[in-house]
């Protein structure tokens, strides 16, 4: 995937992200390890912090270089109007499309990457995000209900299509976008 001028992030933003990459890379290794990201304090208090960090290291890799770093961050680029107009059918879908944003969120749920959010995976995420003041029984009820509401084909798990459908009214583009200052 090309990250560049006509790719997924603008030139000016790339420069800022590169500064950021260098600042995070404390030992000047040229790549980031899990520990570098774990040092970010505000990320540590985020319930999904660990999963977000994992999303930078696909396929069991231990290092993320700058292109890889940008590739993940590119999911959060705001959707500009011109992106949807000049959609060239031959080019791959940009990383910050609605579908790809949803897919990124889906992968935060689907840890074993089997393409479905099982009840067990839903429960795990619930525990992380809500779990502190709630009993296990309540958690299981909420998990069951959430899966049931989204599950259409009755297989007890939420596939990506079902996930997308249940969120079709949600303004995903706005919620999953970060604007980089000029």
């Amino acid at each position, binding site marked *: 995937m090309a990250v560049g001028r006509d790719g997924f992030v603008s030139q000016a933003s790339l420069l800022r992200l590169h500064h950021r990459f260098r600042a995070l890379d404390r030992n000047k290794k040229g790549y980031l390890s899990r520990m570098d990201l774990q040092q970010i304090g505000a990320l540590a208090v*985020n319930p999904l912090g660990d999963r977000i960090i994992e999303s930078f290291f696909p396929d069991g890799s231990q290092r993320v270089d700058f292109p890889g770093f940008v590739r993940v961050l590119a999911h959060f680029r705001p959707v500009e109007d011109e992106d949807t107009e000049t959609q060239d059918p031959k080019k791959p879908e940009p990383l910050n499309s609605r579908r790809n944003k949803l897919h990124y969120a889906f992968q935060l749920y689907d840890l074993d990457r089997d393409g479905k959010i099982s009840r067990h995976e839903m429960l795990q995420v619930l525990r992380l995000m809500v779990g502190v003041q709630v009993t296990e029984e309540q958690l299981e009820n909420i998990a069951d209900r959430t899966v049931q509401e989204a599950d259409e084909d009755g297989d007890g798990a939420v596939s990506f299509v079902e996930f997308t459908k249940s969120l079709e009214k949600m303004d995903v583009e706005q919620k999953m976008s970060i604007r980089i200052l000029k």
Partner: protein
Amino acid sequence: MFLLLPFDSLIVNLLGISLTVLFTLLLVFIIVPAIFGVSFGIRKLYMKTLLKIFAWATLRMERGAKEKNHQLYKPYTNGIIAKDPTSLEEEIKEIRRSGSSKALDNTPEFELSDIFYFCRKGMETIMDDEVTKRFSAEELESWNLLSRTNYNFQYISLRLTVLWGLGVLIRYCFLLPLRIALAFTGISLLVVGTTVVGYLPNGRFKEFMSKHVHLMCYRICVRALTAIITYHDRENRPRNGGICVANHTSPIDVIILASDGYYAMVGQVHGGLMGVIQRAMVKACPHVWFERSEVKDRHLVAKRLTEHVQDKSKLPILIFPEGTCINNTSVMMFKKGSFEIGATVYPVAIKYDPQFGDAFWNSSKYGMVTYLLRMMTSWAIVCSVWYLPPMTREADEDAVQFANRVKSAIARQGGLVDLLCLPGHLDSAHLWVGMTCY
């Protein structure tokens, strides 16, 4: 050779006199105040003078940079992304509150889309968070005449270079030997003093002597590092039967805290010099030292700590994070264990001012000795210590929630943005794991 003799003895005499003068000065101005816990205010005066010199140096650099059209300050000091000003914690509360008001029976609600919020917040902090931003932006706002902090050192003017050279001379040839001498004195006094006190019969006199020997030696060590410490809220200082938990920023945290209070240390038994110090200290008052094998046994650790804490005559525990980064498990157990045993926790926030000397220890870059040498060749270590009001575990909290509560209190006081090394980090199983250890 005969001609040299009288000359020789003159040199020897001069040397002898100057050494005596030096040692007398040392004694009067440094060691005696340390014994009694008073201060002449020399260090504060020193700090003020240094600040004036730094301000002058920065002005020169700015002027010089303008003349040559260099870019002196790193850009992007205002942040990379457009963010909401509220903190993550506040927003989480807001979401939970609005969610639960929808439900009739007060159960918390959850939507599939809740994940978006945390996802975005997480990404935002990866792109731009206060700590890392501050860390790199602080590099050149004001130069403190240490070339190690000035990464863009350019030749600006002769006067500045001379000043820098003078600074190097003073730091390495005057301050460093002085500090090493003080450190040596402090440590040997500690070992000798505590051993001697150990021979006294148990009783109030022994307690009194032990307390003062400990305090005196830590104060000497504080002076050895030229640490200028400001204590806030001293009425909240830890009391017997409590546990003192502090954010661990650098290895010298222990010296800074122990010079203001009388604590029982907890840690792993070491070999070498540390081991000698540990064995001597435990003769004077009951510190809690664990053997390497005992450290792995969580229940033993918890049991010993509980026993110590329940004995009201024993001192408040100062948890002394232990082990190299390989031994991460022992740090985890100490920290988690200290919240499980149900004693009163006295949180302490320590914040370093990096302007005079960077106390942050990058353990992968420098070893302990190099780190200490860097400390001793900086101008000073300036820090603030806040004693927070004591906290106890509530009935409906578990150890982890309690740990979080304490951690947020410390972070809020120290200003999470300004802590170079944060107190801990929640992994996916919500355990508190110690950070940079040694």
